[in-house]
């Protein structure tokens, strides 16, 4: 069966609005007279506010309110956007007397203009009792300095193993088989430690939201968020009001990449609106977005990887120490992916695995969700270890993978026992190798100018939504002229999910894409969706759309049959009309749509939900070719080939751009994105000048190929793509560097200095 609309590289429905510069983003649609909200932030990594004098600030011109910890509600909450049960501990207040990282908010100021708000901030006088700070994750566990000593600290899911008296947010172990016994039998065991840092998502639009009271005494929050329904809960919890009193609207978003899966900014203007009754907006500066936001969890991963001499991988033992920072947002959950989305790649021959973890509090910026969500870190570690194993065995790293990579139909014990129901990873490896020219280029060649060209490979997997957790609803109704209104709660953040879900609906309803109108998210109107994260939109929300469309088709047939005066069983719908098989008479969809708007007919509308007991992984193989200047250590990626199995490709253009963008973010993480903190806990990589993301001159030739499998549980066979594609560059580039010069970098990023001054050979 060939699809009509699914599989077409159509333009995004909002594309022309975006490229013509229309004012469709949060700040563009803020009401006039909105108060400007600014935060006074802690200069100390760990301190308690001894005294705070806001009297002069309150008297400053244009100031509407100045709020301190004394004015803020006293109920702890988490800013993590996760559905029930919430894994992240309730460890925050909007304003707390106890400050746990540089940048923690000390006071909120709202004034008529930005200038006035900033001037008022300058007039606040604070005295701090500075406390010893824990900045190194390795020193956090059982440190005598407690970051969350408060009695009302609360972990909602005790199974996480959280213990605030130990600076511990999560602890656990998952295993299958006897890993020590298997390692003991292996001819070669690689035992290494790898480290990744708190990379910033750097979406071009920083965090921002405005809030306003509505005519019913409720609070409307308009936010650049990936999680409107969670924002409703978070804001209501933080403000100690009923969730029914909060409405959240998501306009167009200028990028998210997971950053906006945490409600980083919403509670502050919300509190101002509650206190003043006025509209209030907070726009994070880039500096705030780089220093008090929701970056990737820095992780330190020890991997022990055992194989027999012939290159059969038998056992993987992995421990991850994850730094959640000052608050626990996404701490208990990200860590799981570091093992659960790396180890299963080698299911084929693996006899045993053990994956254990600790997640600790430190006095650093709170981490959050960044595309890949722990898998990126874990895959860098495991894939690097596999490359190191290949070199130890004298094997081609690509061949080692061909022999050991998971195959379709295999049960993956390290992936919650799920079966790889759709998996084209072997084809992906072959395709990526062919694209890069692996056979000719591995391991290296030297150019006439002395530069060395070398290649490296890595594999990746992710999930498609969170199994048994994520849920999405879609509502669709028939409208005038036989067109449809599709309502979804999934949040398009530039990725194009509004368009992709409309394509799925158009396929299911056999209509042109233009007949489907999509509504952005408004929690008062849209059906519930956990949000756009965990690679869930196409798969989970897509299934909801398919189901809603199926239900709608049944209603259309029923209505058509009624109009035709025939039995429902005799009627069928072909996208344009309902036909009675017996009589051959037809009634057009347009007539049915009009009829439902006249007395006596039922409205034609359907709501359905999606959600899955499994989370079918997309897979990818990535090959990097680098150019290394051996005299300066400078590395440039010149070519990157990615072969992706995301199941059916719903929109090849958008899938390709997702992949290209993900690969370049991975390249940035590998080579130039360097979070830097000073000895006092201040983030020095506090701007796009100091934290370097790749420019287009750093973007190599990036080539993408799709090797689709067919995922039976997904909409038209689709799986996810958004996150899987960021995971391969780090390990692939690290190995290409090793192949070029013999230096192994296990601590990202791979700077010219590490390459030039690094020790050659295996340790």
């Amino acid at each position, binding site marked *: 069966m060939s699809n009509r609309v699914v599989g077409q590289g159509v333009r995004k429905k909002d594309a022309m609005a975006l490229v013509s510069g229309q004012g469709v983003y949060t700040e563009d649609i803020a009401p006039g007279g909105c108060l400007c909200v600014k935060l006074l932030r802690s200069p100390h990594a760990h301190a308690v506010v001894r005294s705070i004098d806001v009297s002069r600030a309150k008297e400053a011109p244009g100031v509407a309110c100045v709020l301190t910890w004394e004015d803020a509600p006293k109920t702890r909450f988490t800013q993590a956007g996760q559905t029930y049960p919430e894994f992240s501990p309730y460890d925050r207040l909007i304003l707390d007397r106890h400050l746990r990282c540089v940048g923690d908010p000390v006071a909120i100021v709202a004034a008529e203009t930005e200038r006035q708000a900033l001037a008022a901030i300058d007039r606040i006088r604070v005295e701090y009792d500075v406390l010893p700070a824990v900045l190194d994750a390795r020193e956090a566990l059982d440190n005598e300095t407690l970051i969350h000593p408060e009695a009302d600290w609360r972990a909602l899911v005790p199974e996480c193993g959280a213990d605030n008296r130990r600076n511990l947010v999560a602890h656990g172990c998952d295993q299958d088989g006897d890993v020590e016994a298997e390692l003991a039998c292996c001819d070669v065991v690689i035992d290494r430690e790898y480290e990744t840092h708190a990379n910033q998502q750097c979406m071009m639009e920083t965090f921002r939201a405005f809030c306003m009271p509505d005519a019913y005494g409720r609070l409307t929050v308009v936010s650049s968020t990936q999680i409107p329904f969670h924002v409703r809960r978070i804001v209501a919890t933080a403000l100690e009001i009923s969730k029914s009193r909060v409405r959240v609207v998501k306009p167009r978003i200028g990028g998210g990449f997971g950053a906006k899966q945490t409600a980083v900014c919403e509670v502050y203007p919300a509190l101002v609106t509650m206190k003043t009754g006025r509209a209030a907006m907070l726009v994070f500066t880039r500096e705030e977005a780089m220093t008090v936001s929701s970056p990737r969890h820095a992780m330190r991963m020890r991997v022990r990887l055992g194989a027999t001499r012939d290159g059969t991988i038998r056992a993987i033992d992995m421990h991850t120490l994850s730094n959640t920072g000052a608050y626990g947002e996404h701490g208990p959950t990200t860590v799981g992916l570091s093992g659960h989305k790396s180890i299963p790649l080698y299911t084929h021959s693996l006899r045993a695995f053990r994956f254990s973890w600790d997640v600790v509090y430190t006095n650093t910026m709170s981490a959050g969700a960044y595309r890949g969500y722990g898998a990126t870190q874990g895959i860098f570690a495991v894939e690097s270890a596999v490359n190191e194993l290949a070199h130890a065995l004298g094997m081609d790293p690509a061949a080692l993978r061909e022999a050991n990579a998971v195959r379709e139909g295999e049960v993956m014990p390290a992936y919650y026992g799920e079966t790889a129901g759709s998996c084209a990873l072997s084809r992906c490896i072959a395709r990526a190798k062919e694209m890069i020219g692996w056979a000719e280029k591995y391991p290296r060649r030297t150019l006439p100018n002395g530069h060395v060209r070398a290649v490296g490979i890595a594999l990746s997997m992710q999930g498609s939504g969170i199994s048994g957790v994520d849920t999405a609803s879609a509502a669709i109704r028939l409208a005038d002229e036989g067109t449809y209104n599709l309502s979804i709660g999934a949040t398009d953040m530039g990725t194009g999910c509004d368009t992709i879900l409309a394509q799925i609906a158009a396929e299911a309803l056999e209509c042109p894409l233009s007949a489907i109108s999509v509504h952005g998210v408004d929690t008062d109107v849209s059906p519930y969706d956990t949000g756009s994260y965990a690679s869930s939109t196409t798969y989970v929300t897509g299934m909801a759309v398919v189901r809603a469309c199926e239900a709608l088709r049944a209603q259309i047939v029923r209505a058509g049959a009624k109009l035709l005066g025939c039995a429902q069983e005799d009627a069928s719908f072909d996208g344009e009309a309902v036909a009675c098989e017996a009589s051959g008479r037809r009634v057009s969809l347009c007539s049915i749509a009009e009829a439902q708007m006249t007395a006596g007919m039922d409205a034609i509308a359907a709501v359905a939900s999606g959600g899955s007991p499994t989370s079918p992984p997309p897979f990818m193989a990535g090959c990097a070719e680098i150019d290394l200047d051996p005299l300066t250590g400078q590395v440039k990626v010149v070519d990157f080939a990615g072969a992706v199995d995301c199941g059916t490709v719903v929109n090849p253009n958008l899938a390709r751009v997702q992949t290209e963008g993900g690969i370049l973010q991975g390249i940035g993480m590998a*080579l130039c994105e*360097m979070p830097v903190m000073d000895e006092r806990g201040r983030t020095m990589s506090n701007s796009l000048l100091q934290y*370097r993301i790749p420019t287009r001159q750093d973007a190599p030739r990036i080539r993408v190929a799709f090797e689709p499998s067919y995922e039976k549980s997904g909409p038209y066979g689709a799986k996810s793509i958004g996150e899987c594609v960021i995971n391969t560059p780090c390990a692939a580039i690290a190995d290409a560097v090793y192949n070029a010069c013999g230096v192994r970098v296990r601590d990202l990023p791979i700077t*010219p200095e590490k390459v030039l001054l690094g020790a050659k050979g295996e340790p």
Partner: protein
Amino acid sequence: MASFSEYVFPETIEEAYALNQKRSSVIVAGNMWLRMCGLRKKTAIDLSRLGLDGITEEGDAFTLGAMATLRDLETHPALAREYGGAFGEALSPIVGTQFRRTATVGGSVYSRFGFSDVSALLLALDARVLLHARGETPLRDYQREPWDRDVVLGVRIPKGRRAAARSVRLCSTDLPLLVCAASLGPDGLRLALGARPGRAMIVAEGLPADADEAAFAAIARDVPLGGNRRASEDYRRRVAPVLMARAAAAVRGEERA
């Protein structure tokens, strides 16, 4: 953010100079880095209406007006011809074309930022700074001085030299981890290093055109270098002779960028 409450367009250089004698004044050139420094001043002095934006060729020198932009230098045909494309090559890694279209020579020279690609190249050319009160001053001296209240009118660079710059950067358009600019003229080879990370300085002069790697290694041993968050002293010392050799090769016409 820099803040000021008054924005003035002086009509003469004398007026600009007089205004700038007050501690509460600051000159606004390109306003690229100034806006980031958090300065609070009463008066901003704008030099953009004083005709200081020209690039003129007279006799054996070029005069680059203080308000000439980096993009002007980069795209100037006579400069490109005279210095073998050195300005284009040395300045094009700076941020982006829009940035370079408003960033000025005077702003770069006055600020004396350690990371300045501009300063390194101008030093290699042994440029002279044209100051309103003090007159013409060698850039090499000016580079070592504290910020003062004189007004930079422009920079004079001698003709008859080939120049080139080589740098290492974490990624394109980033600030350099180290930059070496070289020029070759009748008096031999001159080398300047920038992003040491301190202010750029001349590190060798009068070297024979065919100075070899041993010579560069010897220079690099003694150059004052340091470490910062971007690179260690050790790294800079390893890379310095490499960049010197490459810049030298380039001015000899042996190596393209």
